[in-house]
């Protein structure tokens, strides 16, 4: 055998064979494996890092968490925001301060952890608020007083004060997922990447890091079953790569790059449906105000004036997205018509000179995605124009989403960061991440403003839309004043799916995995 290899294989023959193989691939480009009807294959923009409803890091994780740990309620699919019961047979707001719930009577936890009870609901919700746990989602339940257990399956959620976003951004999210008290305590108080005591319509059956997560229909789930026997979730960070995967037949559903939308809408791949949804998300350039080089507010304001937001957004999204004036999207109270800083390079230069910041060198951390890289290069050019040298640092998602964490060792070195947060349909879910409690958690700009905090609290209890509008506009003006934010865009959501599936989607295009169905 070895002699045959020696005789026949040379560097040139290998090159020749490779060329022939490449030519054959070009001649037969459609040799992809087609998807099985019982398996739905979707793309997520980041890989699994944690499965705990109190500590999830990215939206794709929350999608998985809500599929395997039944939430009390979840969003309805369609174009209007609404909610539907999942783990509860009934749930009702009795008054401003009380919500009564009754669990469905035969939801079980896997791995022998028994039936889901009201005690588990109490544990699951109160652990998010418990200051000792330092959950980044404590704000979702900031109005919680306690969960009172009435009997095995029913209880009352008592609030300290009126809480306007309860039914929009708290209950229909991972914050209402019910975990097994016994299982979590045995795990030491926190769920990692090992799914134990699952209870949702799907069960996580396999996770291969950086390759795929497999959900299988829960055979013990007695209610509306998931539409597919299995859901395969492939972590593909770059949307352009995902589009290629879709066109090769490897994916049934994916978000697309915003910049690809015009092309895809004009020329959708055969057998596919392209949709554009309004996005609530927000993209901004954050500036760490505790970083030694950026402590002077004049330097941060100079950076605000140096950035040509129109050009950044146009270049990154090829005209498919509009410029944002804050963190609150159109249609929600607090959406603004403008920011308090304009693009004025001369003013930026003057501010830098006044602050004595000549030869300033900064770093700009971004997620390694094509749109972010393009936006970052325009920002880099804008900064160079006013005399600030900027180095772009590309990070994979695992690294990026921990850059500003106080648990890491980089958060004080972080200078400029290009971020995007997903959003739920209440302005408080945008403002909550920039409160003083979130410094070093999700508030990487380390913006610490007592007035902002007070306004945030006020917004949570104020139900008059006009007054809420005023409150949230004022909060964003305070963010402007800090010099730590350059608001860029809310994007739009572009998605593409095979016409053989009927995706369950929230109004902003985010997936509700258990509601995907064969068409």
């Amino acid at each position, binding site marked *: 055998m070895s002699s045959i290899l020696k005789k026949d294989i040379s*560097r040139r023959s290998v090159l020749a064979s490779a060329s022939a193989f490449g030519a054959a691939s070009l001649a037969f480009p459609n040799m992809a494996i087609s998807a099985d009807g019982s398996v739905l294959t979707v793309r997520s923009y980041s890989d699994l890092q944690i499965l705990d409803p109190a500590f999830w890091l990215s939206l794709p994780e929350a999608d998985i968490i809500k599929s395997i740990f039944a939430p009390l309620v979840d969003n309805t699919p369609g174009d209007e925001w609404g909610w539907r019961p999942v783990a509860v047979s009934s749930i009702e707001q009795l008054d401003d301060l009380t919500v009564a719930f009754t669990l469905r009577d035969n939801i079980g936890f896997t791995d022998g952890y028994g039936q889901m009870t009201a005690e588990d609901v109490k544990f699951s919700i109160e652990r998010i608020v418990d200051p000792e746990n330092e959950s980044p989602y404590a704000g979702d339940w900031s109005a919680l007083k306690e969960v009172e257990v009435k009997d095995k399956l029913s209880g009352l959620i008592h609030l300290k004060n009126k809480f306007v976003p309860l039914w929009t951004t708290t209950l229909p999210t991972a914050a209402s997922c019910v975990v097994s008290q016994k299982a979590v305590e045995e795990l030491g108080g926190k769920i990692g990447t090992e799914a134990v005591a699952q209870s949702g319509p799907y069960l996580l059956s396999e996770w291969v890091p950086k390759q795929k997560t497999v959900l299988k229909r829960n055979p013990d789930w007695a209610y509306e079953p998931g539409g597919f026997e299995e859901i395969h979730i492939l972590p593909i960070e770059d949307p352009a790569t995902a589009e290629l995967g879709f066109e090769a037949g490897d994916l049934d559903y994916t978000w697309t790059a915003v910049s690809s939308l015009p092309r895809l809408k004009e020329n959708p791949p055969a057998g596919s449906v392209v949709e554009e949804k309004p996005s609530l998300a927000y993209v901004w350039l954050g500036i760490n105000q505790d970083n030694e080089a950026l402590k002077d507010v004049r330097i941060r304001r100079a950076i605000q004036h140096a950035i040509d937001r129109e050009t950044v957004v*146009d270049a990154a999204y090829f005209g498919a997205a509009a410029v944002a004036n804050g963190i609150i999207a159109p249609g929600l109270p607090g959406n603004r018509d403008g920011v308090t800083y304009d693009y004025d390079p001369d003013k930026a230069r003057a501010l830098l000179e006044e602050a004595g910041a000549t030869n300033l060198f900064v770093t700009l951390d971004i997620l390694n995605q*094509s749109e972010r890289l*393009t936006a970052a290069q*325009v920002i880099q*050019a804008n900064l160079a124009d006013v005399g600030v040298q900027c180095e772009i640092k590309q990070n994979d998602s695992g690294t990026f989403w921990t850059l500003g964490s106080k648990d890491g060792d980089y958060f004080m070195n972080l200078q400029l960061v290009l971020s995007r947060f997903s959003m739920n349909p209440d302005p408080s879910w945008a403002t909550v991440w920039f409160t003083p409690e979130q410094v070093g958690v999700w508030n990487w700009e380390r913006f610490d403003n007592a007035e902002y905090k007070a306004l945030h609290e006020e917004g949570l209890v104020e139900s008059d839309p006009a007054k809420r509008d005023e409150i949230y506009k004022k909060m964003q003006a305070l963010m402007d004043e800090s010099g730590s934010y350059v608001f860029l865009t809310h994007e739009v959501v572009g998605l593409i799916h095979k016409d053989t599936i009927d995706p369950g989607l929230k109004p902003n295009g985010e997936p509700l995995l258990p509601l995907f169905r064969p068409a």
Partner: protein
Amino acid sequence: MAELWRPIRKILREPLGALGLFLVVLVIFGAIFADLLTSFDPTRINPRDRFQGPSAAHLMGTDQLGRDLFARVLHGGRIALFVALVSTAASLVIGIVLGLIAGYGPRWLDNLMILLFDAMKSFPTVMLALALVTIMGPSLTAVMVVVILVTVPGYARIIRTQTIALKNSEYVTAAQSMGANPARILRVHILPNVIGPLVILASMDIPVVIGIEAGMSFLGLGVRPPTPSWGSMLNDGFTSIRDTAWIAIAGGIPIILTTLGFTFLGETLRDVFDPRLKGR
């Protein structure tokens, strides 16, 4: 002068050698005279001119930020050649020194160094690059360190083998008996006899090094934006390949031509200077 022309004439007599030499000279010429060949700044963005097709104004078109692709190709050549030449030269020097020490030194040192070379060689290049970039951050220096770590063990092993073969030869024994110290023996008597094949091997490794640089830059682990690199141009083009294929083509063509050029030249050099290996 005639001594210099003789090998060049031999190379030019081989069709692939002539083509290789032409391509290599073309790339080097483009890189050196980039500023004269184009008036565009390769880093200057102009989003209004994005995705323009090839034209008289922009020979290869423009990218998603309106940057002239021809200028980026020429200046990207500087980066590719700089990385390839500097890191290959550094690898050669380090490999030669380590190989001579391993081959001429005591047995225990040889065993230790072989273990070290094999350990270095066993790391997959991409994994090694990812690990190094995590430690050092993406940069040109990181690319060069990866290249050096990947190529040094191979060079050192070749030098070691040849040094072992030569260290008991009569002329070396004679030099030893005349009191020559080991440094002199290695420098004067062994090195000139072992370096030839290594230079040919290094010339054939240059495309590999260019591929590593382009690959790391494609993945966002190499040259930092806005510095032009063929790999980052490929990445830019990949995003919009269906509508504007010329960006990926502009990034891909120089990589292909440079790789072919150095490969053909290296193989011809080997055939010319070591006919025993011809056709392999």
